């Protein structure tokens, strides 16, 4: 029993030492105080002289959709071009906030030179951001970035201006002659509806694209003419609205729920158009319409309804190609990935950020311009 007690005390002592060691410097694993001197080693400079490539940990929002795979492609290329090592990881689905926090923590444990993050929920990672700030690990945002992050914790963000991108969709819808006609004919007693399918109501990108679309449409049609319903976050009342915007956020991100939500919107009376604010939402619209074919204006079940999507993916591209979707807005996921790594390298090298946001751009694509090579390369499979 006594030997056990001694061992237990030693073990406890060792643990306390290692915890103290970890906190006081950015060292890995060593418990003996003698290694304090190497504290300045990792963390600040891109140590090209020692021959070791700097390591950047990239934590994305998800892994599910093709979108992220293209982001990864861009990041991989940048890593090659700029001679750095990267890891690219993401939670299994975009509702797994806790898993992303864990991934971020493990990324930090690896003592990277920098971190690139697309946060599912900024509040949940605030602690980790503070820690990175204190340990001089620069954090770069990408895609939806880290909105509302503590002052100075994010170097810069490579992302799409989501609100602007969504506004494009609203603008194109408004300019559609069929839609215009319906809108003009509508009255407060016989309003028309526009459905908005959003994957969630928490992530910045989806929220921006929802509000961006709604705000632009409201601006174009006139504030007093539009009523928004369907989700508390986007509610807006208007006494005599002739345009009803109905928002639907499914219970989970499962294929079934997205499809059911799409079907629900498609069944809304007086529906003139439907808009999906990301690839998942667009997929929901596609599965609810036999992969888009039911939007066929000639004899499709939903031929009268104007469908607009977001991002890409093979099925969506086919739908746009065939004219079933009026068009979609695509981001440049390749650039997002590429710029994220580039910004990280700049941060490592101590280059001051040129601007807070590096806009990686968005494009409207439809059946006509899909053949354009510059558009085609953005529309991934």
């Amino acid at each position, binding site marked *: 029993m006594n030997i056990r007690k001694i061992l237990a005390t030693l073990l406890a002592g060792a643990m306390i030492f290692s915890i103290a060691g970890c906190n006081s410097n950015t060292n890995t694993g060593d418990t003996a105080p003698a290694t304090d001197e190497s504290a300045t080693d990792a963390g600040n400079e891109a140590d090209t002289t020692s021959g070791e490539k700097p390591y950047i940990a990239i934590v994305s929002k998800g892994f599910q959709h093709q979108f992220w795979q293209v982001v990864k492609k861009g990041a991989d290329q940048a890593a090659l071009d700029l001679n750095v090592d990267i890891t690219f990881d993401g939670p299994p689905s975009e509702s797994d906030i806790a898993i992303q926090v864990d991934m971020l923590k493990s990324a930090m444990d690896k003592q990277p030179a920098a971190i690139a993050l697309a946060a599912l929920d900024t509040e949940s990672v605030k602690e980790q951001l503070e820690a990175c700030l204190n340990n001089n690990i620069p954090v770069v945002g990408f895609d939806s970035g880290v909105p509302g992050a503590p002052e100075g914790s994010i170097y810069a963000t490579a992302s799409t201006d989501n609100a602007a991108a969504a506004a494009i969709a609203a603008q194109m819808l408004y300019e559609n002659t069929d839609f215009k006609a319906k809108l003009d004919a509508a009255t407060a007693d016989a309003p028309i509806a526009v459905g908005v399918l959003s994957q969630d109501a928490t992530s910045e990108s989806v929220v921006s694209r929802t509000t961006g679309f709604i705000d632009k449409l409201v601006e174009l049609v006139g504030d007093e003419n539009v009523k928004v319903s369907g989700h508390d976050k986007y509610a807006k009342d208007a006494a005599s609205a002739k345009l009803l915007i109905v928002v639907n956020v499914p219970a989970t991100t499962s294929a*079934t729920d997205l499809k*059911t939500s799409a079907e629900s919107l498609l069944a809304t009376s007086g529906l003139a158009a439907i808009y999906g604010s990301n690839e998942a939402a667009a997929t929901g619209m596609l599965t609810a319409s036999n992969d888009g074919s039911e939007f066929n204006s000639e004899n499709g079940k939903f031929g009268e309804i104007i469908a607009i999507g977001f991002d890409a993916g093979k099925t969506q591209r086919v739908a746009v190609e065939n004219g079933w979707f009026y068009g979609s807005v695509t981001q440049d996921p390749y650039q997002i990935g590429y710029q994220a790594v580039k910004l990280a390298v700049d941060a490592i090298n101590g280059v001051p950020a040129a601007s807070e946001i590096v806009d990686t751009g968005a494009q409207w694509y439809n059946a006509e311009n899909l053949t354009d090579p510059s558009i085609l390369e953005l529309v991934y499979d």
Partner: protein
Amino acid sequence: MVNSEKKGPDIQKLLAPAALVILYIFFCVFGQNFFSGSTLVSILDSTYYVGLMAFGITFVIVTGGIDLSIGTNMMMSALLGGYMLANGANIWLCLVCMVAIATVIGFINGTLISRLKLPPFIATLGVMMMTQGFGSIITRVQTQRFPSSFDENGAYKTIFYKTANGFPSGIVYMLVFFVVALVLLKKTRIGRYTYAIGSNEEAVRISGVNTIKWKTLVYVICGFFCGLASIVYAATYTTIIPGTGNGLEMNAIAAVIIGGTSMSGGVGTMSGTLIGALLMSVLKTGLMSMGLQGHYQTFFTGLVVILAVLLDIYRNKRAARV
């Protein structure tokens, strides 16, 4: 004593179908646009794969076991099928392989539980995680796509999901295998042993029946139905995303419980499971038609499951007092 017991189970048997009808009528009245052909088709669409998984796992639950891997098993099989297709295999071969793969996973579960005596919860939890990862590993986390109905190989959709006119052929597919499952459970040796093992496994073993073999077969059947489900899932949703499937098993299990099968084993019917699956789809679609957002759906589905389990416990207590 014999006569009075007869009334008990009959009332229980009617509860689930009654609830289904009442719920449907309720939503027709209070929901927007609920009473329509397209809504009915929508309800059916989301029932196919859950129903088939539920048929398979009914066997498992009647023996007193559980299988948490059915969701990810189905997904993995669909993923691998899509992967084979992308690499040039014939679509029908892919579909057959999907069923085969899922059945093999069922066999693995059965061996772990029956022969190696792992507790079902643990064994299938491990297999669940493994299949979830395996699918992603093989496909390198790339989304797999099946042909659309207007594509070259789109014929499979007509058979397993919907015809060009919008007739939900998926229901035929599901009903055919419903009957198969029903007959298996009620009229064959495997069905009899399923109930017997669930009632008192030791007594069955003492009677000289090879319980290891038969219990393994139960899990194989469960895997087989996951394979069937993967076909209709692919036909319905076209796009298969890796790393998903986790959580779908809960819908299937909930359907089985609502339908009157007891988690303690020995009791359950296939028709109950079918009703349970339909009930959940009606609930989900109905709540949405009332304008209630997603969170309400999950809340009420959970509530229904708890009520069903409470009913099950109450029913067992009454039986024990006899």
